[in-house]
């Protein structure tokens, strides 16, 4: 059996990739994808610990997270559509109206 540390390392790596995407990209669609990556990093942790302790609660939770992620994507796509309609682009740095 693969030791749990490897899973944690994988989760951390995926999370950091997602975070990196959010911090560096300008495209809103890439934002969504990066958020998905971060959520799935959390899922990996949940499943890994669930397997480690022999308790299925964590796996159930990861199912919920996926449902939540689907809902979040629906909302996110909606926002991106509105963004596109207003700015003719999906570049997040264009929408800067809510500033001081």
């Amino acid at each position, binding site marked *: 059996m693969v030791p749990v540390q490897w899973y944690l390392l994988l989760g951390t790596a995926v999370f950091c990739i997602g975070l990196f995407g959010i911090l560096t990209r*300008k495209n809103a669609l890439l934002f969504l994808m990066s958020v998905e990556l971060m959520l799935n990093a959390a899922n990996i942790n949940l499943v890994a610990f669930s397997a480690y302790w022999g308790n299925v609660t964590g796996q159930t939770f990861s199912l919920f997270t996926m449902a939540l992620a689907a809902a979040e994507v629906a909302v996110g796509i909606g926002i991106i559509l509105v963004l596109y309609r207003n700015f003719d682009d999906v570049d*997040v740095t264009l929408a800067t109206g809510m500033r001081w």
Partner: protein
Amino acid sequence: MVGAFDYAPAIVLLPFLSFLVALAGGKYLPKGGAFGGIAATAGSLVLSAWVFLTVSAGNAYNETLYTWVAGAGEETTRLTFGLLLDPLAAMMLLIVSLVALLVHVFSLGYMNDEGETGLPRYYAGLGLFTASMLGFVVADNLLMAFMFFELVGLCSYLLIGFWFRDSGPPSAAKKAFLVTRFGDYFFLVGVVAVFATFGTAKFAGEGAFPVIAEEALNGAAEVTTFGFAPETWFTILGLLILGGVIGKSAQFPLHTWLPDAMEGPTPVSALIHAATMVAAGVYLVARMYGFYALSPTALGIIALVGGFTALFAATMGVVKREIKQVLAYSTISQYGYMMLGLGAGGYVAATFHLLTHAFFKALLFLGAGAVIIAMHHDEDMWNMGGLKERMPVTYYTFLSGSLALAGIVPFAGFWSKDEVLYEALVHGLGGSPLLLAGYAMGLVAVFFTGFYTFRMVFLTFHGEPRTDIARDPHGVRWNVKGPLVVLGILAATVGFVNMVPVQDLTGIHLEFLHDWLAHGELSALTAEHYGELLHDYAHYTSAEVASYVAGAVSLALALAGAGLAHVLYNVPEPTEHTAKLGAVKDLWYNNYYQDEYQVWIATSVVLPLSRLADKFDQGVVDGVVNGVSSVSLFAGSRIRRIQTGVVSNYAALLTLGLTALLVVFGVLGGWFV
């Protein structure tokens, strides 16, 4: 059984109702709501008479009707409204409602027949004025008295400034309000101090504050005196409340508002001077006389202020040209006598003078009002003359009031003023020499009173008419003559209720007012009890002086004053003799420069002081506040720059924040060890 006392609240509420009616519907009522006011005050008069009869049967009423603030627990301070109906209050109720009724009737002639506008406002003011004064009279505790005291002040402001389109009345109204307010400020502090000391402000009954004060002085009770000896502290309390009295009763040095208040309509002047506003101050001292009787210092100050004011105001009345000005100074002077009487231990004498003065001063003002109607609102006596033949009813009633004011036997003022002076004399000789100073000033003032009163009568009614208007004066109707006749008869006869000198001479029992005030169900409020207090605590003892001797002296002085006026002014073509007084005339004509020095105090002392306070406020207090706010403003203007609107920056900040938190937790939690 339903008795007079159950209807007593209606005495106050009826005029209040007329106020509401006149205010809301006066425009649609005939005579601008006058009949509502007349009906209401007549109702009050009838109920007052009923209460008077019930009280004279030996009953009294002292009940709390409504508690509007009560603290938690059993032994707590309560703020209440209640009624206190004892002989003094019953007498005062009669005076106030009768004078108010006559003033309402007179107003029909003075205001309606003269075609004034704004009558609903006028009658609303009169109604509220009457209601406030009646409420003040029946108040059973000091706080309620204070509230109605203030309402009376407000109404006087509204009515003095009735002709608000002219320049004079509004400023006179403001002056009356501010000057009395200055005194009331001390009164308010006094009320709070009474609550802090005794935990109650009730005038009578179980645990009333004069009773507690008496017990505290003989050691039977403990009160908070804030580090003073009880005697000293009670004197301070008495003097604080006296501040309000001096303002309202126009005593020196807060008398300056009253002559200016002549700017108001004449019936209002009659109401203010005779029964309501000015009487309120003296009535307050009489109401809580059981408290003042404990403090010889406070009594001495009351007597001296009263005596001084009596003389001081009388001298100023000597040189005035306007009929109402003379009457204004006579009012100040007469209230000075009442204060002298109260301070000299003459509770009954002062109350008696309050009673007689109410009638003869209302009469004189209404008489002056009739003259002013006749003269087409010219008040200068030098434009009058010879009105005697042309308005006989006014003349003879006015003469009755003048004889009473001057103190000529057997008119009302003689008996009461004489008794005030007598009390000052006997207690002064009996070991309180301070009162003799008050007596001396009061006695000299008698001469001046006689002089200015008859100077006024002779200039107005005698001699040859000096102007065309005086040759053909405007007639007056029943609504002017009726009140004059009623008051004229009262001014001549009301003194008979208390003829002490005649009693001493003939042995016939004639001191009914003494009997009326001496006994009662509420024994702590009787003249008998006050006499004991005065003897035990103020150490007043009476010397043996025959009352008719003292009476003869003051009568002789009054006659001398009247005689001098007769010689100087009762000639067909009188001329001004005031110039012979030289510099004194200027001094008197300018009211001893009282207004000037008060204005000087305001502009040269108070104004720089308040400028200084303003600088402190603007510089130091506001400076600190502004400094704090400018720091946050500056900080805000910098920090707001992180709100860039770019979502990536927010994400970066979130990440940085999370990392920072993790580092902090890590360091504090020892994860890296």
